[in-house]
């Protein structure tokens, strides 16, 4: 069962941030409510990386930055064969890396 990747909504000013910060980037308050990153968005930019760091057995990774309709941007893995900037994508959560034998979940974007 996949978990969630959460943005943070500031309880004082309502600003949505991702990743999270100790102080709200807008009002400096430090109380937040978690808001799962979900739904559709637009692909702002992407890359296909062939020089991989440790832990990866595949030939390449496809990564992108997405402007989500919910009001934040996020980096994630793209599950899209031929990405095009401006494409509509949908956020899901899946295993993105194994670190020290432990599976780590993160955002995976597919075609909307």
């Amino acid at each position, binding site marked *: 069962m996949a978990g969630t990747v959460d943005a943070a909504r500031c309880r004082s000013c309502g600003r949505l*941030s*991702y*990743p999270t910060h100790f102080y709200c980037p807008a009002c400096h308050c430090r109380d937040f409510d978690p808001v799962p990153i979900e739904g559709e968005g637009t692909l*702002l*930019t*992407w*890359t*296909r*990386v*062939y*020089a*991989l*760091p*440790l*832990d*990866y057995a595949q030939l390449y*990774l496809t*990564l*992108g*930055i997405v402007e989500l309709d919910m009001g934040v*941007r*996020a*980096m*994630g*893995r793209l599950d899209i064969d031929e990405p095009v*900037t401006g494409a509509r994508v949908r956020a899901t959560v899946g295993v*993105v*890396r194994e*670190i020290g034998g432990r599976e*780590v979940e*993160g*955002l995976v974007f597919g075609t909307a």
Partner: protein
Amino acid sequence: MRDVAIVGAGSTQFGRSQWSLLKLMCEASNEALGDASLGDRRIDAVYVANMGSVRNNRQAGLASALVDRLNVFPAAAETIENGPASGASAVKHGVQAVASGMCDLVLVCGGERMQEVNAFESTEFVSYLSHRYAEYVYGVTLPALAGLFARLYMERHGIRPEHLAMVAIKNHANGARNPRAHLQTPVTMEGILTGPDAFMNNPFIADPLRFFDCCPVSDGASAVLLAPAEMAGELARTPVRVAGIGQATDCQAVHERPDPAELPAVRLAAQRAFAMAGIEPSGVDVAELHDAFTILEIAESEEAGFFGRGEAAGALERGETRIDGRLPINPSGGLKARGHPVGNTGVSQIVELVRQLRGEAGNYQVPGDPRHGFALNFGGFGNNVLATVLERGV
């Protein structure tokens, strides 16, 4: 605050070295110390710039170890880790120590030995610069961040792969004239972009960036000796004054910046350095920019104010940034060809500018007696940037 001058400079060969990290740093320091007329004066402090020694070379406390090998006890010693901007950071701290009056003679040495580990390990340790939870877990590397940035910047400003290749061709040509450069082989447009074998020679690393858009993984060390400007005349034939330093930071996660296609920390660092030096970008005669990726030389040259937005590509086409151009950029070969031992690079840039301002750069000397030099050292993916302005004479 006292004015501070560079009275000695030195560096090793860049590339894959058989020397240990400390041996590299000792050789660079020895050259910088020997370059100045020190007599029996003692070094007050040593600042070392390095990023990866704990992981790659199994050595912590690098500055203390360097003091030991150089026998400059009881000099104060600190190691500065500020990612790829460690070098300029260490120079800044050295300048502050002298400017404040706390120290007279300060040695700043940047060193990195990356080839002690394999390519996966070196890619991995540099990727620790990225945001642990919002970037690193996806396998984000520095080339990946550069690829994401490059696509945005190219689409927005009409930059074509040819322009990226022009940066590589220029910097490889410059590196071929620098006997200490890591890569001294010229490359051509046919060889890396337009010829039948181009894409065999030049595969994608992080689409749209190809192999020749990325700097090599290098070993090397550089060092400068700093002194109060009023002492500089006794210590050096041609002292070089540190006229301005500027630094600025930005969001760690690239996607969170208000506009991920801009590098505001580069803009601010440069503005602050120019303001402190009291010159405009047009007053710069030679620049060493942080071209870890070809797109960065283009973007930085615009953010720093040398060209208007979208104008760097035209300047490249007209050859304005070649050694004999209006504003030579990276005459040493830059990170692209001189090499990029990460934590060392900011010190290397300063050493290269000192050589240019003294007229001692040999085959890659910029003509016309350059008086002002500008260095830009880019940390993380633009989240910690230092700019330094140097001026010949004190």
